[in-house]
């Protein structure tokens, strides 16, 4: 188990500099993304596109009289991660998480002679997912761009969601994060600016997937 122990010296966080955090490390990542974000064609499915009243999923209903009309979807679900997690919990964008987890995995490769070091399956799953959601070249730059939204009272959760979903247009963003709709008029300008900045930071890999 020397593996991580070596690199977890007294009370310090493992240094996980970005090393090879790009999503292109993953074959799965290369595969992702084809159509949704590509070529300005928002959803692959025709009925997903704008005019639809997608907000009422229970509505499909008629078919089965089961409990299907049910519980769901408050029209503007508010993500309240903080209420359930410790106060000092820090949200990570997928691209940040990918950098951290990739750093840990790289350390493991270096120390792989020690057969007692094994990462659980959930680590691989987590890393793969983080890489899939990592659409940008630099997590730090993305964070700096998105920080500007804080002055418009956009919450940290919403900021993370914007980074993770990587929307192309303001309409897409407001559709995916309905809690922002309330202040749409006030923040739309800022959102558009942020999206245009984020577009510049998209990884070449991601762009390729989109084309």
């Amino acid at each position, binding site marked *: 188990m020397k593996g991580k122990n070596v690199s*977890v010296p007294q009370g310090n966080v493992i240094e996980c500099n970005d090393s090879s955090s790009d999503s292109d490390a993953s074959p799965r990542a290369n595969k992702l993304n084809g159509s*949704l974000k590509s070529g300005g064609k928002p959803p692959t499915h025709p009925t997903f596109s704008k005019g639809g009243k997608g907000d009422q999923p229970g509505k499909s209903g008629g078919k089965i009289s089961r409990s299907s009309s049910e519980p769901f979807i408050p029209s503007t679900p508010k*993500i309240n991660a903080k209420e359930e997690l410790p106060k000092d919990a820090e949200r*990570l964008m997928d691209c940040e998480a990918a950098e951290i987890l990739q750093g840990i995995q790289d350390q493991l490769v270096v120390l792989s002679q020690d057969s007692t070091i094994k990462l659980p399956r*959930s680590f691989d799953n987590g890393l793969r997912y983080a890489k899939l959601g990592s659409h940008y070249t630099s997590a730090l730059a993305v964070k700096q761009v998105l920080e500007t939204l804080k002055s418009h009272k956009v919450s940290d959760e919403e900021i993370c969601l914007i980074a993770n979903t990587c929307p192309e247009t303001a309409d897409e963003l407001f559709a995916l994060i309905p809690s922002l709709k309330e202040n749409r008029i006030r923040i739309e300008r800022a959102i558009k600016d942020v999206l245009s900045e984020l577009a510049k930071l998209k990884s070449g890999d991601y762009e390729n997937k989109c084309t």
Partner: protein
Amino acid sequence: MFFHIVLERNMQLHPRHFGPHLRDKLVAKLMKDVEGTCSGRHGFVVAITGVDNIGKGLIRDGTGFVTFPVKYQCVVFRPFKGEILEAVVTMVNKMGFFAEAGPVQIFVSNHLIPDDMEFQAGDVPNYTTSDGSVKIQKESEVRLKIIGTRVDATEIFCIGTIKDDFLGVINDPGASS
């Protein structure tokens, strides 16, 4: 969504591990015990990123084991209602489909799949639109929204929907074939 959080845990160590490598032993045990576990409150512990502090040990009466309070940092994955995830479909049946996003499993009921997508049985069960332009089958990648979570001691299970704007298939492995 991933979070970086600080947690605490009391670790019990057998006296045979005492010595100059006690700290290493404790950290190794911590990683073994904690990584890959799931708690309803914190979600899946994906990886421990650091150990902040190991407190003074307390000998337990009768056993000789010593309990050390350990404060550590870790990356956890915790899904929330309203969150948008990109997930890989793992199983399709007439009730809906299952998908995985990281360590989390999500079920999308057929009521939460657009009405014009019909279930097609066969070797590769799938949901397809009438014109065949969109297909959801195993290995498809979908963007979905979490609308409910069920949490128990060891797992978090989510219910998702793709019946909303800008949700749905983002990559269909069968499309290229």
